[in-house]
């Protein structure tokens, strides 16, 4: 059974149909990249899955349960973690605290007013592990807004990981990163994703990153899926080339 399944998602903004009947399915452990020219609707699909936006038609299923239109925090609770296109962290808090709060979200004891020490300790352990995985441990004590842009993006990924998700959704994780930062990010991500059955849905513009990380690719163009499959297949797909390069014929 697919971990995530979208059926016929439609979302309009006024007269513009940003997402026009998009369906896709992700298996457990799969790394799927969603690509497409600007304005293809990639981020909108993301927002529809995480329920930040509600679809005008279509459904989203996660692990067999329908999650369409659920409150955003409920979707996150079910095991979906995401990063944002414009990097979202807690600026004035330390990197460690950023990730700890993310880790704490899964702890049912997080409502505690008193006796919270065990909760804090538990979430700190998870946080430190995530920071380690993303090679951010040496920056753990620094304020999040003092980190370099690349490190902030990795911090966001660490936060997402600390939520112990089943589906990790990365929205343009390498945007704004230098070549060297991108390499480091890709290496880190690849190492992290090799173990375990974490599923990943990834929006990316950088094709090299896509080909290094993804098991399969979905191509969007003008709100529709025009290709779906293994990277090699998609690479040679005529429609895809036309969408990106505007070739005629």
């Amino acid at each position, binding site marked *: 059974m697919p971990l995530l399944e979208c059926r016929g998602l439609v979302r309009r903004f006024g007269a513009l149909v940003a997402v026009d009947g998009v369906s896709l399915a992700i298996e457990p452990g799969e790394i799927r990249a969603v690509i497409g020219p600007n304005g293809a609707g990639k981020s909108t699909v993301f927002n529809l899955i995480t329920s930040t936006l509600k679809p005008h038609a279509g459904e989203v299923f996660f692990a067999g349960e329908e999650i369409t239109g659920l409150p955003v*925090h409920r979707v996150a609770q079910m095991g979906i973690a995401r990063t944002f296109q414009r990097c979202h962290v807690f600026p004035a808090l330390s990197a460690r605290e950023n990730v700890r709060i993310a880790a704490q979200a899964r702890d049912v004891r*997080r409502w505690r007013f*008193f006796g919270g020490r065990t909760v804090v300790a538990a979430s700190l352990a998870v946080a430190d592990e995530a920071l380690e995985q993303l090679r951010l441990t040496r920056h753990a004590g620094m304020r999040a807004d003092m980190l370099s842009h690349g490190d902030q993006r990795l911090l966001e990924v660490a936060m997402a990981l600390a939520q112990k998700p089943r589906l990790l959704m990365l929205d343009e994780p390498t945007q704004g990163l230098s070549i060297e930062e991108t390499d480091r990010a890709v290496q880190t991500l690849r190492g992290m994703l090799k173990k375990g059955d974490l599923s990943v849905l990834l929006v990316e513009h950088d094709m090299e990153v896509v080909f290094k990380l993804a098991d399969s690719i979905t191509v969007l163009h003008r709100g529709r899926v025009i290709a779906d499959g293994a990277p090699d297949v998609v690479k040679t797909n005529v429609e895809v080339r036309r969408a990106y390069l505007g070739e005629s014929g």
Partner: protein
Amino acid sequence: MIRFGIVAIVGALVPFAVPQYALTVIVAALIFGLFAMSLDLMVGYCRLFSFGHAAAYGLGAYSAGLILIHWKLPLLIGIALAVGITVLVAIPIAWICTRSTGVSFAMLTLAFAQLGYAMLFRFRDFTGGSDGIAGIPRPPGPFGMDWFQARNGYYFLVLGCLLGSYLLCRAIVRSPFGAVLAGIRENEAKTVALGYNTRAYKITTVVLSYGFGGLAGALYAGFAGYASPELFFWLTSGHVLVMVVVGGAGTLVGPILGAVFFVFLEHQLSQVTDLWPLAFGAIFMAFVLLAPQGIWGFLARVRKDSNAAA
């Protein structure tokens, strides 16, 4: 904790060191300190600006006053009941207000406070209308306790409530719950995306804030012996907001200092000049413009800088 202990000890010695008339002013300052600290939970820790916190104060005061006058329950029980009533009323208020953010939230809180104000006049048989209720007693008990009936005794009651509330608030703010409030303050969208039901956190914070504010109001009723409609008026909400901002939002201690600062200043200056409220507002604006982190926030930064330099 050591600093807290020192403060507690100093506080305990105060009634024996100052003249009696000064004690009255000090009690008023401490009550306002509690009121201001209660607002800080909302404003400083959750960035929920309220223009209607007078509602908590007024609710606490009027509830306590009416209970103590009509039912003649022991003072402590009357105060506890008043807090309970304030908390209960705060729940639907919090639920409605937190549906909005920013200015809409502020206006909603103001609306509720002004509604309360209007209701005082509507039900004037019950609440005494513009005269308010007077002659609020401090009935003894339970177990025949009556130490709070004396001026010194009431001082200790207020001091105890303030210190106890401070410890409670501090625990709340440092708890896992408090960490989520920090997240909401820094980036609410992100906090939601992490899986937190931020609405529920905000409602809880508002209710807690009203609860402590109601305690302050109830203590005031017992202290002054009367409750009047000004307690609900928007200027009261304004004064306490000023105390929080000038004292230093988000520090718990700052607002208490802000309250003490203002009560003393008002006491001194109002005898000398009629321009006092004007100065009050002007000082507030100066702080918003020049020192938004408030007195305590400024001092904290100075201390941090000197620690870093050391």
